[in-house]
């Protein structure tokens, strides 16, 4: 049965799903485009799928799942054994992947997404950027990145010496921070974070997702 991803290829949280599908060598899926600009995500039909009015949503037969980090966990378990082992190979690996996925969710994403919202999304919608938000969030993100720098000096990737869902989860927002928000110095000023960013962002799966986003 074909998987259906309700979302938009240019949207960060949808990209988390698409990158996972490509890493897992899953080809039997289709994207059901949700036009955010037309407010489709707030329509009564969409709210039946996702009551918070947010993308992405995954449909797999009679299973409907929302929240991108829950969706990618589901995909990793469903397709275990094929493609990149995104949850590692042991119980301990999986626990550390889960830990760094939570770090991304709790300590990285809040500040990163607020900066991206002001520096990238607001201008795209013709709204003014609130620089006070950027000024407040940047030091928080810098503190987190300092921890990452120390950690990545000892570890090639976040959960160990293997690329995992934890690293992948950082791709969409960090891509915008570096390439659209004018915040590349946050990454480039930290040598181990920089090397990690180069390694994960150059992966063919993510490059393919970025190409999809441009169509």
């Amino acid at each position, binding site marked *: 049965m074909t998987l259906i991803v309700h979302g938009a290829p240019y949207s960060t949280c949808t990209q988390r799903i698409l990158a996972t599908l490509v890493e897992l060598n899953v080809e039997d899926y289709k994207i059901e485009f949700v036009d955010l600009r037309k407010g489709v995500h707030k329509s009564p039909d969409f709210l039946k799928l996702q009551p918070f009015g947010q993308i992405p949503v995954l449909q797999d037969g009679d299973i409907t799942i929302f*929240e991108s980090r829950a969706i990618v966990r589901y995909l990793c378990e469903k397709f275990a054994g094929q493609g990149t082992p995104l949850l590692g190979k042991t119980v301990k690996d999986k*626990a550390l992947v889960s830990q760094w996925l*939570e770090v991304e*969710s709790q*300590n990285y994403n809040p500040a990163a997404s607020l900066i991206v919202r002001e520096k990238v999304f607001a201008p795209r919608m013709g709204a003014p950027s609130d620089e006070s938000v950027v000024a407040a969030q940047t030091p928080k993100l810098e503190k987190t990145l300092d921890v990452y720098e120390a950690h990545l000096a000892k570890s090639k990737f976040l959960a160990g010496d293997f690329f995992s869902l934890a690293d992948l989860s950082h791709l969409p927002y960090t891509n915008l921070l570096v390439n659209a928000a004018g915040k590349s110095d946050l990454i480039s000023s930290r040598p181990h974070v920089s090397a990690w960013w180069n390694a994960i962002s150059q992966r063919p799966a993510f490059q393919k997702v970025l190409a999809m986003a441009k169509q």
Partner: protein
Amino acid sequence: MGIVVLGSYLSPYSLRVLIELEELVVDYELKPVNIKQGEHRTPEFLKMQPFGQVPVLQDDDLTLFESRAITRYLAEKFDGQGTPLLGKSMKEKALVNQWVEVESQNYDRPLIAIVEQVVWKPSWGKTTNEEIVAAEMAKLEKVLDVYEAQLTKHKYLAGDFFSLADLGHLPGTHLLVNIGKKGAVFADRPHLNAWWEDISSRPSFKKTMAKTP
């Protein structure tokens, strides 16, 4: 050597792990971390948890932090004993994970912002910012409306079984409703209120809270 939790009864995130260990009927040792005296910022602690946060789990040679990673690890490790907190099928587990994320992304943010203003700041002798409380309550109420609709269809969040998703709401909601006295927004929503009454009467919750100062 068994399960060791480094945490604090003052931290809702530590309590999440302790309540779960009761549900799973797992013996553990709690090593208290004195937050008030900044024990979570000492060099020794930062070696274990570089963000300076509780709780931390030690299980043999595994040191794990982030409460939702810890609770997920424990639920999988002890699958088959105690309450089946991840459901009984891949579909149920996916829905549990979904509602854990909802709690993490949509519920906890405004809740903790409110709790900081109405519970923690007064305890530190600081003033509550009522504008922030009003703004965050408005956000929380929108989320609670979705919960009310969901709980009209099912007894618990992920379906008709108590799961990790429901459990994750216990410590924070206790702070909001029982300590912060913001329970009116629950009382106004009958299914949400019934759910809260149900989950907060579970022995695991009562036993854990009986140990808090």
